[in-house]
């Protein structure tokens, strides 16, 4: 009997059909990934497996059987006993998925006690054991910590520990590593792999990242618009996709081992940072977010800045555009020290939702830099904005639309148009594509490349995703804890990294080939043993 049997599942939210006649099954102990872009319905499927749509007004038809329980027909009490005990779910954002007020050990104990008749003390002991199991050091003490006292990776481990507490037969992991740094992601994926081997539980992995799927599962199911596009062994699907959409999806995934196509003609130095340092806080609490960073940006080239969270890359970017003053060192634009913001150096922000005013039409947002420059001629401003909108692949008629009427990729195009409005020479892009799906990512990256060639722009491309950075950069700066670890031509840094940290980062990038992934996993394990 299969562990999981989904037949003709359809989930509708009002008039929106999120899942459309989906069927699949999962054998005991097997691992399947649901891969798809945002809006493909993959998370909705995950929720349906635990009956989480019950009582939300969603229309669910079809049958879902998890470990012998018919989720749709089950009583509330049967459903409660299924959740956690037979099938447990690990969520994407480990900080918001834990109660901020309670110790982590107590939260795990509470879940355990919801399914087992044990004393409070026994449940706490169990919590410490599972925390140990997922690699939390000094688990007995750390079990008393609250979520905000844990790092992102430790929180995700804690969530996995919570899932383990009741020894489920099926683990559902909904984007379990999306909020994590690449090295931490590798650790979590390794942990899932080991746990699966030890406990024999089945795994349903929901992810937008094909690389993560390649690392972790046997089979992959590609979803689009709520339907299954293609299903098969992960190696076969990735090596020889049968469907056009799968091919399109795979082509859009940036490869960390692919060289950048066009070699650039770098001009004179436009932006230069010398020994830049930035501190936050005062007295004993002061710490340097960026320390002693020197780099140059030339006309027409792209400088990639990679690093994990907390490496200081955003602080550096903000100093480059003049949004933050360096505590020490100097930033020079075109040979002159620049203090304060300079129209010639513009920024594109990570989150196109929160970096646009939701109460103003996008045209007005794009016009801001023009008005700031003292432009008074309203018709002239409108014409220029229309031109900019068209330049970034939108329509002039979009002037009066509000940000919520656009998709994520379109919003980022608006952000780029706003940066272009000031006729900049340099654009600093802070994680410009990390909130976007891979196919959209590829389009935005292509747009930036076009604009660069056409206008001779210098780009600073800040990102945590090593593959994307390689795709766009001529030169790369690797940051760690505020310092520049490695800095040089992109191909050199990626193909023959000098620093151990750079090598470690590159080794942690999920491979699109399951066999390579397995080899790398083995390689990662060795130093850990030594």
């Amino acid at each position: 009997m299969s562990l999981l049997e989904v037949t003709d599942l359809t989930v509708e939210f009002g008039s929106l059909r999120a899942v459309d006649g989906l069927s699949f099954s999962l054998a005991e102990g097997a691992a399947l990934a649901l891969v798809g872009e945002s809006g493909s319905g993959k998370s909705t499927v995950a929720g349906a497996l635990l009956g989480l749509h019950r009582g939300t007004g969603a229309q669910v038809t079809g049958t879902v059987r998890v470990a012998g329980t018919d989720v749709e027909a089950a009583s509330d009490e049967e459903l409660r006993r299924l959740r956690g005990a037979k099938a447990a779910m690990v969520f994407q954002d480990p900080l918001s998925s834990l109660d901020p007020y309670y110790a982590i050990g107590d939260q795990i104990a509470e879940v355990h006690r919801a399914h087992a008749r044990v004393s409070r003390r026994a449940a706490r002991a169990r919590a410490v054991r599972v925390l140990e199991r997922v690699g939390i050091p000094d688990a007995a003490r750390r079990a008393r910590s609250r979520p905000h006292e844990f790092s992102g990776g430790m929180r995700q481990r804690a969530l996995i520990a919570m899932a383990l507490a009741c020894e489920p037969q099926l683990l559902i992991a909904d984007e379990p590593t999306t909020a994590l740094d690449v090295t931490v992601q590798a650790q979590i994926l390794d942990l899932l792999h080991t746990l699966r081997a030890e406990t024999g539980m089945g795994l349903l992995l929901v992810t937008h990242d094909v690389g993560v799927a390649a690392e972790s599962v046997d089979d992959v199911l590609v979803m689009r618009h709520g339907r299954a596009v293609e299903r098969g062994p992960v190696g076969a699907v990735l090596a020889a996709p049968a469907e056009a959409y799968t091919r399109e999806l795979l082509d859009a995934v940036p490869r960390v081992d692919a060289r950048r196509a066009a070699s650039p003609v770098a001009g004179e130095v436009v932006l230069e940072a010398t020994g830049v340092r930035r501190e936050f806080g005062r007295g004993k609490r002061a710490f340097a977010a960026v320390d002693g960073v020197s780099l140059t940006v030339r006309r027409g080239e792209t400088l990639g800045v990679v690093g994990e969270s907390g490496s200081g890359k955003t602080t550096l970017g903000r100093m480059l555009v003049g949004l933050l003053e360096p505590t020490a060192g100097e930033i020079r634009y075109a040979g002159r020290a620049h203090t304060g913001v300079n129209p010639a150096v513009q920024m594109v922000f990570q989150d196109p939702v929160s970096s646009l005013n939701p109460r103003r039409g996008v045209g007005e947002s794009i016009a801001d830099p023009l008005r700031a420059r003292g432009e008074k001629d309203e018709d002239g401003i409108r014409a220029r904005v229309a031109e900019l909108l068209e330049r970034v692949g939108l329509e002039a008629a979009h002037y009066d639309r509000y940000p919520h009427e656009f998709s994520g990729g379109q919003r980022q195009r608006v952000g780029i148009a706003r940066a272009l409005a000031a006729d900049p020479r340099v654009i600093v892009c802070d994680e410009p594509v990390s909130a976007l799906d891979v196919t959209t990512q590829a389009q935005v990256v292509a747009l930036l490349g076009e604009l660069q060639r056409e206008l001779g722009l210098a780009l600073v491309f800040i990102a945590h995703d090593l593959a994307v950075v390689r795709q766009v950069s001529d030169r790369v700066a690797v940051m760690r804890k505020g310092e520049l670890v490695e800095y040089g031509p992109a191909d050199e840094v990626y193909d023959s990294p000098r620093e151990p940290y750079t090598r470690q980062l590159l080794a942690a990038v999920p491979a699109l080939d399951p066999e390579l992934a397995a080899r790398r996993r083995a390689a990662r394990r060795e130093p850990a043993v030594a």
Partner: protein
Amino acid sequence: MNGFTGFVLRRVIGAVVTLFALSVIIYVVFYVTPGNVAQITCGPRCSPAQVHQVAQQLHLDDPLYVRYGHFLQGIFAGQDYSTGTSVEHCAAPCLGQSYQTGRQVTDVIWTKLPVSVSLVLGAMVIWLVLGIGTGVLSAWRRGRFTERALTAVTLAGTATPVFVIGLVLMIVVCGELRLLPFPQYVNLTDDPEQWAWNLLLPWLSLALIEAAGFARLTRASMLETLAEDHIRTFRAYGVGERAIIVRHALRGATASVIALNAVTVGSAVGGAVLTETLFGLPGIGQELVHAVKVVDLPVVVGMVLVTGFFVVLANALADVLYAVADRRVVLA
């Protein structure tokens, strides 16, 4: 723990500064208020000579800063007052002497304060139980009949003035049903049982007004918490709905309830004038209103400072409790 001590210390210093600012403001306000204080204090039938004498006795002719200086001196060092024939010592902290009765303000406060505190603390227990209970119930039964009925009742509670609720309670309970005698304040130390029985109606009427706010706040913050991701986690792990409501959603509401409670208690100690007046309770609020009417500056200053002290103390306490309830506050 060092951060925590510093946090508490900052709050205490802030509270002291606030109280001083408060006393200065009251002095200035009364200084610029029109009306001849000496005349009012002396009475309508006083001759100009007598009025002049009163003004001198009360130092009303001194400039404002001199009078404020006296006031500060009294607080820190105590003061001697001449009553014409004898000299009366007023030990620090001395808040001065009533223009009207010649009693020391601190004595007046000591007789009024227990009444107000009894009223407010008793009512607090009721409004917390009633307010939080109603809030939890309406968050739990959101969208159903229970919630709508409770919302209607609590809205009616906020909208009804205390003298309506209080009068109705008195007429029904004391007048018609004769379950209780008409309230008359009895000291807790004299007869605890009578103290409680006599205060029951004032407690209820004050609490019914305030409970509505607590119900709304509890419901709103619980619904906010219920929409958060960690609630989904516990649902997805088969934790029962009751545990989710009580342990997680209500826990999320505690911090804001503590904050509201502190402000409510603080302001009610000197501000429950209507309730005190209606039930004839000789508390701070009633005394303050009287003192304002007869421009008895020392008593007004004393009463306002006491009221202010409770508001500030309650707020400082709330901040500390808030920090205990949510440790992230100190860290942020």
